């Protein structure tokens, strides 16, 4: 659930573009490098992008009586890092803004910041920390993807609260109101997304683990160990 067109007044929509554009440019640079040097990894990139496409089209009902959709960005963030994920996020957000009246062009900067950059960055950091701490790969993937999803909506709430501080409670008062909607609605969805992402990674390990090793996402020893357990 992205911020609607025209729903961020000046200067907020410009500021979020200023935040997002450098990351998107860096992501395009990384993506170009990947495409020219490692053509064999393109299919994996396509799968990561397609995963975002599928998940962000599914509006799921939640306990709160509202619906929202998962983001699907955790998977791309784990495999390709947050900058490349930002570019994939732009593609999905543009599709939804141009054809579905969902999100918007003026709010694209803010929506890329939440769904394409900060959420994926959280996933990336959690993944790196978890793997370093020697926690089970699938457990780490679960937490990384869950938080990529959830943090996205915490950021959306923060963006709206910054733009619309309430008269009584100021920024904090508004933030509480927006978090009550987005962050709570998102909890079951985020857990569901984490579980799905972990399951998809099981299949990637089965059919194309060498690509993950090449991308330095996972070491060959870990792959061997996981295959030993799940085979």
């Amino acid at each position, binding site marked *: 659930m992205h911020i609607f*067109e025209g729903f961020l007044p000046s200067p907020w929509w410009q500021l979020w573009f200023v935040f997002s554009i450098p990351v998107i440019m860096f992501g395009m640079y990384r993506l170009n490098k990947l495409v020219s040097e490692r053509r064999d990894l393109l*299919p*994996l990139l*396509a799968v990561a992008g397609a995963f975002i496409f599928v998940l962000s*089209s599914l509006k799921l009902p*939640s*306990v709160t*009586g509202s619906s929202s959709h998962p983001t699907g960005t955790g998977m791309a963030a784990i495999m390709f890092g947050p900058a490349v994920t930002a570019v994939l996020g732009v593609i999905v957000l543009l599709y939804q803004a141009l054809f579905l009246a969902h999100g918007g062009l003026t709010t694209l900067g803010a929506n890329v910041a939440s769904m394409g950059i900060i959420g994926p960055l959280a996933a990336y950091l959690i993944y790196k920390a978890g793997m370093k701490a020697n926690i089970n790969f699938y457990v780490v993937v679960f937490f990384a993807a869950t938080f990529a999803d959830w943090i996205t909506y915490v950021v959306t709430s923060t963006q709206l609260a910054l733009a619309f501080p309430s008269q009584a409670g100021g920024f904090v008062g508004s933030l509480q109101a*927006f978090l009550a909607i987005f962050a709570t609605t998102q909890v079951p969805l985020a857990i569901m997304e984490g579980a799905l992402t972990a399951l998809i990674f099981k299949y990637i390990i089965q059919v194309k683990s060498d690509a993950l090793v090449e991308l330095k996402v996972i070491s060959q020893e870990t792959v061997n160990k996981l295959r030993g357990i799940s085979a």
Partner: protein
Amino acid sequence: MKIGKGEIIFAVIAVLFMASFFYGMAANPGSEFGGADGAAEGVITDVTGGYEPWVGNLGFEPPGGETESLLFALQAAIGAVVIGYFFGYYKGKGRSD
């Protein structure tokens, strides 16, 4: 593909998710489970005393729910085709190698 531990854990979480939805339906009688973004619009109206977006929708606007659901389904279908194609490709390639 063999049903392993991963599939079972996923299935359990999926069932719990469905259960939480049914609980949500019981806890919010009459709710149509509209978008959380719509609910946020309500908060913006409360906070500002009526906010007018400074620019309306700039892209194509689906004329109704039917067209909108078509485009959302199309989005999911495109993604699913890509995912299925490459998983099948890699699996077949792994076998022939």
